């Protein structure tokens, strides 16, 4: 068996021109697919940045909210009602909204302000500099050091700025796991200061964060929140809802999907066509093998091996190329959103398997049909 596959390997690889064309086709297709889906994954991931960074287990919000960037404030009684639900250990409000900062240079920069519950500071970020208690200080804000940080002209602890005509001062620099999608820096402050500094509507609570007693309490909490006319989602559900929104309700998803399908088709055509020509050119060889005494099954293994080998090699090259490009791009552009997830790689792998499958199917059909007699007659 191994010997036959080695013959198959040599027939394939020694045909340098065809093999190169096959590899290029598959590599190109995988590269495009992975780039597309990685970009999309990056966007999806970042669109849930707040959810990931705050890290609360259960989020209560208006049912019309699609992403954490949406802001439909809820009346205050909701918080009290949620607090009294059985299974809720504690529930705190979270403020999330936009504001305009005037920097020392006089330039304006819009920011996202996240207001943490004053008493618990639930959802606080990890600090690189400063103390979290300083957030209670006068005009205190904590700035997130992410890709957007330089847009605030690289503030340090003590740096002052104006925020909606109030004085603000940086008391800490925080690190978060995920930076946001929209290219605006993030400031943390307390819930009450956020309300005070940022003009708000009558209702003020954007989200209520719940710490449930245990996971089994969650379904009941959800049901009770629903009875209030609001929606409670676990962290993962909220991330999924956000993803679904970007996938199906914005142009991003459809366009990425179309591009992915196109790269798949292009890859399939190039590799399928090249493999088919390869098989056609080697039909005589396969016929000779059959005449000499190779069984049909063995010829099928040879073709499957050739198709899989070329596909897997192309797959590896394509993934490698995409990762390399993304890494390089990230070095040059810190806010570049592409992120290669296992799902993306898995998706590309499935597509490569389909390409290999279709190519070998065509090849196998051809090869099983050859009559060694025709080879014999010349």
């Amino acid at each position, binding site marked *: 068996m191994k010997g036959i596959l080695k013959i198959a390997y040599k027939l394939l690889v020694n045909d340098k021109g065809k093999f190169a064309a096959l590899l290029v086709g598959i590599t190109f297709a995988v590269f495009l697919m992975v780039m597309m889906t990685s970009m999309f994954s990056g966007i999806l991931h970042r669109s849930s940045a707040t959810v990931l960074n705050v890290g609360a287990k259960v989020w209560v919000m208006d049912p019309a909210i699609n992403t954490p960037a949406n802001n439909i404030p809820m009346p205050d009684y909701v918080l009290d009602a949620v607090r009294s639900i059985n299974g809720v250990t504690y529930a705190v409000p979270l403020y999330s909204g936009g504001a305009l900062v005037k920097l020392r240079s006089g330039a304006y920069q819009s920011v996202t302000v996240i207001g943490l519950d004053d008493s618990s500071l639930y959802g606080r970020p990890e600090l690189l500099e400063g103390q979290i208690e300083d957030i209670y200080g006068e005009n205190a804000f904590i700035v997130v050091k992410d890709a957007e940080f330089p847009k605030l002209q690289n503030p340090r602890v003590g740096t002052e700025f104006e925020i909606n005509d109030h004085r603000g001062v940086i008391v800490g620099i925080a690190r978060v796991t995920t930076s946001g999608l929209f290219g605006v820096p993030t400031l943390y402050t307390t819930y009450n200061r956020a309300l005070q500094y940022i003009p708000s509507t009558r209702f003020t609570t954007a989200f209520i964060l719940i710490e449930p007693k245990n996971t089994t309490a969650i379904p009941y909490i959800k049901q009770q929140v629903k009875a209030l006319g609001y929606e409670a989602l676990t962290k993962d559900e909220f991330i999924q809802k956000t993803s679904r929104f970007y996938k199906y309700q914005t142009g991003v998803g459809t366009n990425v999907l179309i591009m992915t399908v196109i790269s798949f088709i292009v890859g399939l055509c190039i590799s399928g066509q090249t493999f088919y020509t390869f098989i056609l050119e080697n039909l005589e060889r396969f016929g*000779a*093998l059959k005449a000499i005494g190779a069984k049909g099954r063995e010829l099928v293994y040879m073709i499957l091996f050739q198709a899989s080998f070329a596909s897997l090699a192309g797959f590896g090259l394509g993934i490698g190329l995409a990762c390399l490009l993304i890494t390089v791009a990230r070095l040059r552009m810190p806010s570049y959103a592409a992120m290669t997830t296992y799902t993306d790689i898995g998706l590309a792998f499935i597509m490569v398997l389909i390409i290999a499958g279709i190519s070998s199917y065509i090849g196998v059909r051809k090869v099983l049909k050859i009559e060694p007699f025709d080879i*014999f007659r010349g």
Partner: protein
Amino acid sequence: MAELAMQATALVKWFGEGDARTVAVQGVSFDARFGEMLFIEGPSGSGKTTLLSLISGILRPNEGTVMVEGRDIWSMTSDRIADFRLNKVGFVFQDYHLFPRLTTVENVAIPLILKKNDWDKSIDEAMEYLEIVGIKDRALLPPVKLSGGEQQRVAIARAIASHPDILIFDEPTASLDGETGRKILDFVKKNILTDKRCIIVVTHDNRIFEYADRIMTMEDGRVIGFEQGGGREE
């Protein structure tokens, strides 16, 4: 009867149906004996290649039997027939059918590899066959770099690599000059033919008839006669 390598009885093969039907072989019976060179000759289209295919397990006859070692090969499953071709028959195709992407020695090793031998061992053994046919020094070249006569030798080395009982040559000298053709036949007769093997040669080339033990003549799909060849030493 033990010296019979193969016994064909009442073989019939036709192609196509209805008006388009051509009967290529019509009721041919003959046998091939160990230790002999049997030549098959006849005009173009007389059914020689078809007959060779019928007796070597390549083409299924419409009627008749091909007995080898007491069994009708065409009563076996297709896997067994493939094994028969691999183990009992060696083919030297008219246009050789060497693999241009493999080296000469790898070409020769193919039947050994198909027999599931270890790759390195097959290559070593193939080397010995190349030595027998006298072109060991060409082992690592691709066959396209070899002359016609040398390619013929590669094809012979490949055919004998599987230790076949029946060795089949279709027009072995068609693409060689007279001198080279005779040299090859001379070589085959002296080195490849053993008394445990029979060699069947299809040819138009009467210059090599002197190497035949028996010559079978075909016309229109029938055998019209047997002659003793020039090589018969009785």
